[in-house]
């Protein structure tokens, strides 16, 4: 029963806040935040209590004839990790958000959406059967839409929200079709039965590729990643919670949850790995030239997710899960730190306008440094261990090309993170900014510790997770660890070299020489414009064309034709009804002659 309580608590908080927002007269500013945080915190406690036990909870939902679809929640080893991350990081972000959004008028609405998001994320993670997972999947998509376009006065933000939702829906269609293929093959959609069912390789391949397509939509991989950078239009806690820690990892969760099926689909592995690797590389390149802090972090998230799918592609599922956990910690930390910076700079997000915040915001600076070190993969910190695991597994599974790509991306990650670090915090420029209050800084510190120690602690427990026994060749592993550490150091040094104040002329010269490349990167390889040109513009033409021709021209035209035909025949027949007497008599006589002739002729 606690599992149901755990899952439904955020929903209750969301309903409470929603009603409060719509109907209560005088809102007390902080109350909404407190309610949601408390709700999530109790879920966290319940989750930690139930952690790693096999608990299931089911309610009858849809039952028509032979088809049974109960509402099943199942907690097991894998999902408890995710639940802990969601509720843990979620609670921290809730605390941060209560302070961050304190002065916003629609705070109840914000927390209603946030709790709704946490609830649907929990449903997604705990979903016992694919349709329940899908319910969480779409619920999360809805909340990301509502939260991205939270500040809807600016129509740009509203469009970004719509874009996110529609791209997610494209992914969801893939998910639906995958489910139908599986249902047709084995008659049930429960994950347990699916994992044990014997399915023909082709159906498994089709189903898994469709599900993978859905994951690319949700976890922003190559074809459908365009929505994540625009999703930064939402408030920063949203970006932190949804677009860094939880939602974007649901794709990885799905793959790891159905790893038995995905293992069976051999030819899909190489596809997943390459997609992951290429996404990581491309996102990293774009991040190199971004000026907006949140955009840099967004692209770095995309590239880290690329790593995750690379890991899944090569079959290193526990490495992927480990990296998800660590990534949740340091990426949330980085986003929240960026948030406090933006908060401090009163909404200013452009890096070049900041600088030298080291002195102005010491605590934020300290926590950001820890996060920065973790993401670059410097040995003691969590980022190093999880990324190294992935690279190690890619190497051992023989995809040396992808391993090399991964290394280069790691180097670039280190480079652009350091660039961000230097430009915002170091440097001699004294921009005045006020340090955030402790309500925001406390979660930052907690996250900083987690991302620092998380690596070591995680490394140990990941062995317990081992899905399948794996020969330990420590000697090779050490070498690879060393290599990746050096790569990270190289990236950092290069960035320090490039972005020191004195190096301004060199940067100008490079800018002049590779001008076209930097503008291409700035515009994210013109992918958005390309899609708009190739896909959206013709589609808009089609919509208009379809309506005008089929609806207005063909069908209505045809009906008008019929109607006017009826009327015209009426007019014509009316004309042959002359009022003249002699014409009537003539017609009558001719009619009589016709009938007489017909009667005799009929007999011949």
């Amino acid at each position, binding site marked *: 029963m606690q599992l149901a309580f755990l899952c439904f608590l955020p929903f209750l908080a969301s309903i409470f806040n929603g009603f409060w927002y719509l109907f209560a007269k005088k809102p007390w500013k902080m109350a909404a935040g407190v309610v949601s945080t408390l709700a999530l915190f109790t879920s966290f406690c319940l989750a930690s209590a139930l952690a790693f036990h096999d608990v299931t909870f089911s309610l009858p*939902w849809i039952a028509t004839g032979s088809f049974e679809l109960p509402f099943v929640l199942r907690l097991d080893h894998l999902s408890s990790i995710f639940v802990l991350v969601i509720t843990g990081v979620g609670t921290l972000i809730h605390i941060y958000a209560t302070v961050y959004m304190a002065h916003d008028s629609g705070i109840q609405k914000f927390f209603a959406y946030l709790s709704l998001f946490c609830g649907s994320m929990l449903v997604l993670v705990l979903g016992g059967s694919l349709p329940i997972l899908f319910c969480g999947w779409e619920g999360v998509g809805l909340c990301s839409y509502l939260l991205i376009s939270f500040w809807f006065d600016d129509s740009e933000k509203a469009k970004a929200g719509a874009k996110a939702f529609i791209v997610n829906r494209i992914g969801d269609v893939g998910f639906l079709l995958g489910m139908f293929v599986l249902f047709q093959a084995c008659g049930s959609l429960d994950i347990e039965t699916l994992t044990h069912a014997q399915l023909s390789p082709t159906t498994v391949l089709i189903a898994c590729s469709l599900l993978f397509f859905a994951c690319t939509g949700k976890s922003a991989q190559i074809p459908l990643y365009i929505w994540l950078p625009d999703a930064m239009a939402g408030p920063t806690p949203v970006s932190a919670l949804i677009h860094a820690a939880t939602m974007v990892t649901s794709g990885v969760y799905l793959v790891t949850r159905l790893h038995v099926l995905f293992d069976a689909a051999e030819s899909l592995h190489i596809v997943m790995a390459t997609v992951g690797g290429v996404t990581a590389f491309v996102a990293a390149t774009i991040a190199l030239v971004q000026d907006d802090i949140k955009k840099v972090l967004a692209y770095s998230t995309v590239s880290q997710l690329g790593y995750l799918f690379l890991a899944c592609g090569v079959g290193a599922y526990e490495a992927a899960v480990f990296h998800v956990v660590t990534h949740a910690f340091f990426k949330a930390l980085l986003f929240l730190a960026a948030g406090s910076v933006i908060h401090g700079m009163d909404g200013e997000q452009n890096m070049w306008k900041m600088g030298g915040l080291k002195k102005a915001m010491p605590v934020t600076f300290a926590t950001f440094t820890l996060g920065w070190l973790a993401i670059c993969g410097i040995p003691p910190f969590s980022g190093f261990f999880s990324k190294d695991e992935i690279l190690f597994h890619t190497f051992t599974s023989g995809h040396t090309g992808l391993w090399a790509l991964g290394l280069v991306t790691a180097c670039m990650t280190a480079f652009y993170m350091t660039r961000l670090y230097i430009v915002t915090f170091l440097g001699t420029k004294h921009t005045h900014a006020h340090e955030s209050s402790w309500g925001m800084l406390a979660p930052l510190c907690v996250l900083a510790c987690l991302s620092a120690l998380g690596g070591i602690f995680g490394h140990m427990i990941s062995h317990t997770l081992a899905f399948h026994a794996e020969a330990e060749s420590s000697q090779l592993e050490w070498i690879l660890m060393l290599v990746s550490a050096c790569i990270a150091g190289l990236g950092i040094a290069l960035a320090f070299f490039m972005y020191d104040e004195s190096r301004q002329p060199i940067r100008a010269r490079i800018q002049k020489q590779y001008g076209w490349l930097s503008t291409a990167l700035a515009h994210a390889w013109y992918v958005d414009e390309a899609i708009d040109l190739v896909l959206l513009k013709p589609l808009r033409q089609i919509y208009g064309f379809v309506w005008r021709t089929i609806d207005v021209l063909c069908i209505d035209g045809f009906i008008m034709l019929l109607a006017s035909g009826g009327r015209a025949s009426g007019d014509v027949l009316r004309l042959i009804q002359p009022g003249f007497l002699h014409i009537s008599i003539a017609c009558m006589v001719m009619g009589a002659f016709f009938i007489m002739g017909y009667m005799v002729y009929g007999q011949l």
Partner: protein
Amino acid sequence: MASYSSHLLSLLVFLPAAAAFLGLGARGLGLLRRDVALWYGSLFVTVLTFGLGMMLSPNSEEKYTWIPQLGVSYALSLDGLSVWFVLLTLLVMPIALFASMHAIRDRVAEYCFHMLLLETAVLGSFLAADMFLFYVFWEVMLVPMLFIIGIYGGKERLFASMKFVLFTFVGSACMLVSIMVLVYMHKLQFGVPSSYLPDLLRVHGAIIPSRLLFSAFALAFLIKMPCFPLHTWLPDAHVQAPTAGSVILASLLLKLGGYGLVRIAFPLFPEAAHFFQPLGMALGATAVIYGAWVAIVQTDMKKLVAYSSVSHMGAVVLGLFALNSIAMAGSIAQMISHGFATGGLFLIVGMIYERFHTREIAAFGGLARSMPKMAFFLVLMTFASVALPGTSGFVGEFLILLGAWQTMPVYAGIAALSAIFGAVYMLKWIERILYGQAKSPSLAVDLSHREILILLPFTLGIFWLGLMPGSFFHQLEPSILKMQFFLTTGGYHHG
């Protein structure tokens, strides 16, 4: 299934009509002078009928011989399938009346008369078990609708009402001819003519040109549905109809098409149903995509919602023609959920029209800021119609697509795309009027308690069907099984 004949059904059907004539007579004699008395009188009657409906057990029956020489019997029957449609009618009618109290100012007596008459006609059609009686109620529906659209509608209301009546009449003319053929075949086979549905079901499949008759029935129901090529009357009727007219049109009249298919066309001609299955599913799939595409370019709110109904009903057609129990249950759920969602949308559009007196999407902006309650209901109804899990839309859509995939994966795949295009046109519309800069903030007064009370039933309906559809499917069970029995064994073997 135990069925006891009770006069409750006839009382239920004819109570509104009696009240209608009573009201008109009273107004004629100068009794109910003030309009308010008429409004609350008719509202009381619809609520009374709702109460009456509650007391019905879902398999009561009533049969008297009406015209023995032609085998016509006055037969009403309520079973698992029609109980939901009847309840939907009983729910929508009071809401429509309550919602139109402010909108309709003059000729109130006629308005109440036609609304109550319409309720009788719709209830009668859902309950009729005799084909002659079904056709009588099916046609009677046209007259009040004609007057409601014609008298209280928008500018080109005359054209729209004429188009609506003629469109449906052509379909029902073909249906009447096939009913006549069936009655005649029954006379040939059993010696005595009868138009009672269970008797007609026993007519031997071989002797009747079942494919021709099925297509005649299907034509009438697909026009009413409305399915893709025959839908052009719907946008005109919706745009010109008053708010209550649109709500009734969307929530009730469209359901008759689907109900007719399930209750009459499929069991009568199972072999023809299987023969026309690919065509039907193709039409359904194209309707889904076509409805969504055309809705994207609409500038008038009501036209947009009308085309979204075309898209939803396309999904229902797809589900029905899939001819398996999952898809059929899904389409019936989708029909009921469409009644809630689109009915709600039309109510909201009506409320917006009452405030701004225009339905052009371009004329609005930033309503969410000044009208949060309306924004909440609008967003909820929109996502219910875009089949978001947790709302009733998902239950219907998911089951339809799941069932349709079993028989024709290609068309189910195409229909699944509706999730994308549905999201596109709905969000485009929501974003245009709710978000962005407010254009005429002075008029934007948020929903009054009265209006919230109007929208509440539909909201509860959406969540009930979305989260706890257990009782819904349980009631539906016997009819779906009966349907499967007819479709698999019925005429199919020797068809």
